[in-house]
């Protein structure tokens, strides 16, 4: 692979092997990414729960570092019909974001959103539009939470909807990652609807395939944030009458108008 890409083959071997080796620095970096992702996922889950008016539970967010060819085995959803919404970050650093639903579950959610009496009676165009909107909101919440935190501009392309088998969908993204490294890095989490089937397959997965660049950007920014000293407790008290009260006063006026 690496020779085809014109890279030094030994550096690629190191990359592969690097996935198994831990130094204090690497633990820190992965921890930072995981934490950022968790923040985003929390907001996304809240958004989903508000749209569906249902409690949503999330799995512990995870980062997978594994050889690309093992990824489909890992999820073990091989030929399940899946509705995927694909978005990409706009900007210099590439990052793919996927929202995956079981096809039936996507229909059910779309029916809920469009107030259709049953999933079967749902207009397919309406379904597509509803699900795309859902993805927009979810991923928007996910990214804006992260970008607020680390102060990086993260904007995304409009969602594209695909219905295919699970493996066929994720293969594309794995190929993209395997061009630069033999180890795929995937951030993912599961959302579960309280009203959904108990079967875990009916859950919704949020997957992010961060590129090397975006990883570095996020880690660097987060580390900067860690190093800035926390505001002194006194400052807050001093600031409160000036800043917070102004906001509080502004609101009632707006309402009166």
């Amino acid at each position, binding site marked *: 692979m690496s020779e085809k890409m014109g890279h030094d083959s030994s550096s690629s071997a190191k990359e592969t092997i690097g996935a198994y080796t831990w130094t204090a620095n690497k*633990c820190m970096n992965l921890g930072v990414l995981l934490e950022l992702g968790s923040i985003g996922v929390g907001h996304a889950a809240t958004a989903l729960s508000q749209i569906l008016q249902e409690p949503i539970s999330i799995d*512990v967010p995870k980062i997978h570092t594994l050889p690309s060819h093992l990824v489909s085995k890992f999820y073990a959803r091989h030929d399940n019909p899946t509705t995927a919404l694909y978005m990409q970050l706009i900007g210099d650093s590439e990052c793919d974001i996927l929202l995956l639903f079981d096809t039936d579950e996507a229909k059910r959610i779309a029916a809920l959103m469009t107030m259709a009496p049953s999933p079967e009676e749902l207009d397919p165009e309406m379904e597509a539009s509803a699900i795309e909107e859902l993805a927009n909101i979810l991923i928007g919440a996910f990214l804006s939470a992260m970008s607020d935190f680390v102060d990086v501009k993260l904007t995304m392309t409009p969602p594209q909807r695909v219905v295919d088998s699970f493996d066929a969908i994720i293969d594309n993204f794995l190929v993209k990652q395997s061009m630069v490294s033999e180890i795929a890095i995937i951030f993912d989490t599961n959302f579960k609807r309280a009203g959904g089937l108990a079967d875990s397959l009916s859950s919704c997965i949020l997957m992010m395939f961060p590129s090397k660049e975006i990883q570095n950007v996020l880690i660097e920014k987060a580390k900067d944030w860690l190093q800035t000293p926390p505001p002194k407790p006194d400052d807050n008290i001093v600031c409160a009458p000036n800043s917070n009260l102004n906001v509080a006063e502004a609101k009632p006026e707006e309402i009166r108008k």
Partner: protein
Amino acid sequence: MSRKILQTSQDPNDSEAYCWTNKNLNNVESLLEIGTMGAGHATTALSEIVHEQIEVEVPRLHTAPPHLVPKIYGRHERPTTVIYMQLKGELDGDIMLAFDADEAKQIAAMMTMTPNQDEVDPALEKSAMEELGSIMICSFVSAIADFAEIQLIPTPPQLVTDTFDAIIDGFLAKQALVCDIALMFDATFRRTHSKAGGTIILFPSLELQETLLKKARKLVS
């Protein structure tokens, strides 16, 4: 590493996958930190013996399928002198101290005050290296044992000279019997005026890993 420690997912299909949550990342970090502590003590001991400054590389923890471990080190056929000690008692594990064969000769010459490394008596070289291994490994182990408040009793040192891969294969096989991912800690160090270096490698057993983690968690909380 123990599947119990690394694995958070209940999915039986992900036996070969590596998935990281906050919890198991913390575990890796704690083990790494404990190892770093031991390595610090061991290299201090070496520096006192050879009266030289010792450079230490960033200590690493590896969690890899056993068949990939020789590739991680990439020392394949290099002649290596290893001093090997086993931990006995309630908690077991393997520790080895690996030197390039040449470097081992040089250090032995220094320790026995022989002017030329080719003139070292082989029996004396063996004895010196075993002594060095004993000192370094014991300071490594006792640092860990002090930290975790456990008893770790090492066996007498054994000296082996062979290719690197041949030596670690034995240890890997032992770990492969109990879990499908090998876990080892290593720290590489080098005398300032020498080209070659040494590596101290710890293969903790599952029980030892868990005991250390329990202790680390207690300290943190």
